[in-house]
């Protein structure tokens, strides 16, 4: 299946993805998905389009109070579908995708630790990658984070 077909299928299936799917080059498809529709699109991509493997999840702070979470899905190692979703910095929340891809667990914990994005439905477990005594409310990958001010004793 080539990239154009994938784009066509996504755009046909979800009208709101019109012009949001972008083929950067061979094997790289980027798609911006509205927050409310993300779960449907993700489930469709995994279950119906055969993007079975999750390579990684990238979280980033775009500035201006917007977080972006990018899910790098791949199909038999050949085509990468990067589904991205924008979150509001005031209330960053996504649902877990561990039910589709068990390997998402560690990437979602990374989102929680480094950007402070709440992942709904994630099973309890160790945090990653910060230490257990890392102070509350400190999220290093946010652009406004400038290090921890030590307690003066």
């Amino acid at each position, binding site marked *: 299946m080539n990239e154009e077909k994938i784009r066509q299928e996504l755009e046909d299936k979800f009208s709101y993805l019109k012009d949001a799917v972008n083929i*950067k*080059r061979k*094997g*790289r498809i*980027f798609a911006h998905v509205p927050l409310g529709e993300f779960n449907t699109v993700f489930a469709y991509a995994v279950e119906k389009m055969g993007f*079975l*493997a*999750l*390579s*990684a999840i*990238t979280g*980033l*702070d775009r500035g201006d109070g917007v977080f972006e979470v*990018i899910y*790098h899905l791949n199909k*038999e*190692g*050949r085509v*990468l579908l*990067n589904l991205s979703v924008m979150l509001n910095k005031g209330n960053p929340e996504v649902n877990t995708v561990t039910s589709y*891809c*068990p*390997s998402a*667990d*560690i*990437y979602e914990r990374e989102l929680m630790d*480094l950007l402070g994005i709440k992942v709904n439905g994630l099973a309890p477990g*160790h*945090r*990653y*990658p*910060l*230490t257990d005594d890392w102070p509350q409310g400190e999220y*290093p*990958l946010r652009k406004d984070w*400038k*290090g*921890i*001010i*030590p307690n003066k004793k």
Partner: protein
Amino acid sequence: MHESGDVKIPIGPQHPALKEPESFLISLRGEKITASSVRLGYNHRGIEKACEERTYTQGLYLIERICGICSHSHSTCFVQAVEEIAGLEVPARAKYIRTLIAELERMHSHLLWLGVAGHEIGFDTLLMYTWRDREVVMDLLAALTGNRVNYGINTIGGVRRDISSKQKEEILRAMDILEDRTKYYIDLAKGEATLIKRLQGVGILSHEDAKKLDAVGPTARASGIERDVRKDDPYAAYAELDFKVVSVNNCDVYGRTLVRLGELMESFNLARQVVRKIPEGPILAKPPRKIPAGEVVSRYEAPRGEDLHYVRSNGTEKPDRVKVRAPTLANIQSVSKMLEDRYLADMPIVIAAIDPCFSCTDRLVALRDAESEKKNTVAWETVRLKGIEWHKNRGTDFTSLNKKLTRLFQHA
């Protein structure tokens, strides 16, 4: 899940089986493992955050130092991403040199792994021999790039050093030596009974599980998943080279050993092809200092599996976001599956079989406040004085000894 009746033993953060700090908790009933869990993050150094505050050139050397073994993998993956954003056309010769170093790195990494695997199952002789032979590649890398690890051959837009015809001959000679040795190790792996006894049927990861848990690299290929970025999504010069993806259906540690040995043989082939086919020409396309805005996902087949970098630029000298997904992070999640119902004695080799590199896995964030640094770190001198004082109280005077030692060092 860990149950209260079982003996729980911590493997790590400091443990002889692990070459890097990472913590596994293992529940035992007798010698059998009933449950296991892993806590990652001990090697967290803040590289991703630090990259945002460095220029692309500076960041490159930092990225290279994510991991000592697969340093070329990370740096190539990163420069590929940056070049793609900047729209730089890398000269063909540079691509071939990158490929050559990549394959040499794969050789040294797989030989290193073979030695470590030998050590984990108490076969130190294998360790000594494979590491002795690994020196051949290390010397070659030092001669070609200027260092044994952290080669620093990549730069944005190409490579920093050319290879001469004399070096080409040296490469071919080294390949012959190594091929000879690797054939011996393949023989050994297929014939040494104690080795087979310890590896076969250990750490099973079925084809389905490997798919479900998104295993990558040799771990996946040993479970019959023929997936290799070099073939699936060719980068550098791989599209023009002829090689096959090694995969077996053993699904166990033995299979992973065979895959790595097979890949070694392929690597020798690839290196020879590179030397034969390398075109003449420039090795560097001059990069702009400011990289235009854009985002790119770059992939690379590191010795341990697929390495993935996501780079977003914002039109300045510094990247906006660099995300590194090292192969170990993808593979580590299958370890619990592999340890199911195995013996404690299999634990080291099962963990080693994914060729874990925890420093690749954990990156990011450091406390940057200078004030806190002063408070938290004790200067070496303070520790030394404290130690001398302590021994003096017990009746040993180290100061005179120390003077002698200092003099000795100064003479040397």
